[in-house]
Each structure stands twice: as structure tokens, then as C-alpha cells.
């Protein structure tokens, strides 16, 4: 182990290490971040939700979007898997269906970054009591 020699070194080290705690740091304060819930029930997994989620996570960090990804159970839209719910702070959640890698990119660049709506929106017919 090379020794840390200065404050600048220590800060550089912190920057490098910070990503290892990313998942935990974001969880401290999820309301202020973009929350993306991916439906990962049998139907979602079979339709490739896991690959899309991985792709989207990479893309989000590439674009510098602070987003929390969680998996959830079946949202009831098995006909439109993979589905995911995107909650931008201060806005109502929107559910997107038939999300493949391209649409995932679109959701991030168009909807999350610029507020434009993209194809594949499923009208939300549920409410969460968890407020």
C-alpha cells in the first residue's frame, strides 16, 4: 500500500472510492433522485427486464444521472414487459412498457433529462398508499 501523502491525495482517493458506496449513499435520500422501478417478476425476467435494467444502469451513470434502480414484482402489465416505472422528483410516476435498450436510452435522454414524453407510456391505473 502506498501511503497517502496529502489532502489532495486523500480527496482523489475518496473520489475514486465513492462509487463503491453509491448504492448506499443514494438510498439515504431517494426522494430527491430519479427512481426507476423495474418489474422483475417471471414475466419481466422472461422478456429481458434484467438485461434492460443493467443496460439502463450503465447508461444512467454514463450520462451522469443520479438514479436509484430498484426491482419490483409484477405490476400487472404482463402484456407489455419489460415495464418500468420512472419517478422524477416532483412529478407523478410514469410507467413505460415494451422497454428495450433503445427505449431505455430514450427514456433517460428525452424524458428524464428533457421532460419530453416518449413512446410506450402505459396509463397508470394504480395508486400507492405508501406516502
Amino acid at each position, binding site marked *: 500500500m502506498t501511503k*497517502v*501523502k496529502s489532502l489532495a491525495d*486523500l480527496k482523489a482517493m475518496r473520489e475514486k472510492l465513492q462509487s463503491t458506496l453509491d*448504492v448506499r449513499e443514494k*438510498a439515504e435520500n*431517494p426522494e430527491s433522485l430519479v427512481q426507476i422501478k423495474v418489474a422483475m417478476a417471471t414475466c419481466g425476467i422472461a422478456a429481458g427486464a434484467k438485461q434492460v435494467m443493467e443496460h439502463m444502469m450503465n447508461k444512467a451513470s454514463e450520462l451522469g444521472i443520479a438514479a436509484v434502480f430498484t426491482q419490483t414484482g409484477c405490476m400487472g402489465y404482463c402484456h407489455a414487459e419489460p415495464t418500468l416505472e420512472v419517478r422524477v422528483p416532483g412529478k407523478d410516476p410514469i410507467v413505460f412498457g415494451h422497454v428495450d435498450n433503445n427505449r431505455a436510452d430514450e427514456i433517460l435522454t428525452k424524458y428524464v433529462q428533457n421532460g419530453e414524453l416518449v413512446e410506450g407510456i402505459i396509463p397508470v391505473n394504480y395508486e400507492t398508499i405508501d406516502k
Partner: protein
Amino acid sequence: MHVLICGGTGCKSSNSLQIIENFHNILKEKGLQDEVQVIKTGCFGFCEKGPIVKIMPDNTFYTQVKPEDVRRIVEEHLVKGRKVPELLYMNPENKEHVSDSKHMDFYKKQIRIALRNCGFVDPENIEESIARGGYEALAKCLSEMTPEQVIAEMKASGLRGRGGAGFPTGLKWELCAKNKADQKYVICNADEGDPGAFMDRSILEGDPNSIVEAMAICGYAIGATKGLVYIRAEYPLAIDRLKIAINQAREYGLLGENILGSDFSFDIELRYGAGAFVCGEETALIHCMVGQRGVPTL
């Protein structure tokens, strides 16, 4: 995803280490070992309902988890994204399960200052502390401030002792700094004897690096090059973790000779107490550490 499992004394005594092992094994079996990180943390402060398993980023808070529950948590929650309701914390008032720690009354009003890293980082890995800004205050003191400025800052902060007397910390440091001596020592009083009081233990077990850093800052301010931690021998886990932190800090050049490339050197040793209540008192503690009877100076 990160799985945080409490490795504090309370949860450890109710088998949390077996839970950790089961997580490793089952995740491996499912091929998820690279996607899910398993971290042994310090105390979550909820020992009553231990062992605690917390899943991040959704803050799911599982209580009284048994080693045989691990398979269900992995198969249901980590693979399929469905929480295991029976293991969630139950609100004692309405008997409802609470989905995550953000909605638990116990945590709602908490603002953690001293214990900010406890239950969040792996206390046996200094890199997690550094990732949270650990040792930056020490680095700042050594590179940008004189000892007098450090003391002035302490006074301005209004920080006081937490032992009951509430003695102003800045004033204490100033008095020590003015005192002339060949060798000065920083003593960390980690003797804790009041029934049911475990705050020293929590911080030593959950975030030992903050103690190491704080002692070094104090040493710089008062002109001491040696630090001693008086800790009771009944705290084996706290002792282990503190030793690990001290060794790792030495390796990284954050403790020992010429800390962070400066002229300042500081090192820490442990002294064990036998658990006498009175040895938490300053003068009795010092008597005990030099090998005399642990009685206060009258």
C-alpha cells in the same frame, strides 16, 4: 444491490455471522455474487430486534432474521424483487409491517451525527471510511491549520464533552496545549460502565476510524505524539475493530511517522481495563493505566 448485515455484538450473538456466510453461499449458488455485495456493518441501533438485515437501495429492514431465512430473502427479494413480509419490521402500534427503514418511527426523528457511519460502512475496511470523507479533517488540520487554529475552531464549534459534565472540548485542548511536558498523551476514554449504555461500544464497533482520526487531530492540537485508548476488556469486538482500524490507518500513512507527508507523527496504543465503574473517571483511569489502583485523586 447491497446487503448490509449487522455485525455488532448484539446481532453477532444471535448468529448474524452465520447469516453472512449463508448470503455468500447462496448468492454464489445463484451466480449473483458480483451483482449483490454483502457487507458486515456496525450497529443499526435496533439490537432488540436483531439480527438485522438491511437491503439497499430500497432500505428494506428485516428484523430477527434467522440463518435459514436467507434463502427466502435471496430467492424472493434479490431475484424476484418481492419483499419477504413476515421478516419486515412490525409497527407495534398497528401491527403492520413497515416496508423500509425510512418509514419506521424509530428512525424518522433521528439525525445521526457521531454515529453517521455506523450501520452504513464496513468498519473493517478503511476505504469505506475514506469514501465517506474520513481523515479529511485530519488532512485539513495538518496542511492548512496551525494547532492554535484547530483549538480556536474547536472552541468556536461549541463542542462539549458528552459524559455529563459537558466540559467545553476547545477549552480542555487549550489547557493541555499550554501545559509543558516532555511527552504528552491523548487519552480516549472508552470505558463505559453505566447499565445499558453502549454508545462507546457502538461507535468503536461501527466506525472505529472516526476515533482514530479524532485522536490524531487532538494530538496535533495539543502537541502529543502518543495516544492511548482505555477500553474495557469486556469489549472484545470493539477492541478487534479498533486494532484493525489502527493498523489500516498506519498502512495508509494516516497514523504513525509523518502523517500525510507532514512533520506530525502520532500513534495509538490500547490499554485494557477490567471493567471497574470508577475507572471511567479521569484520574482513576489514569492511575489504572500507569499500573496503580484505580481510585480517583481526592
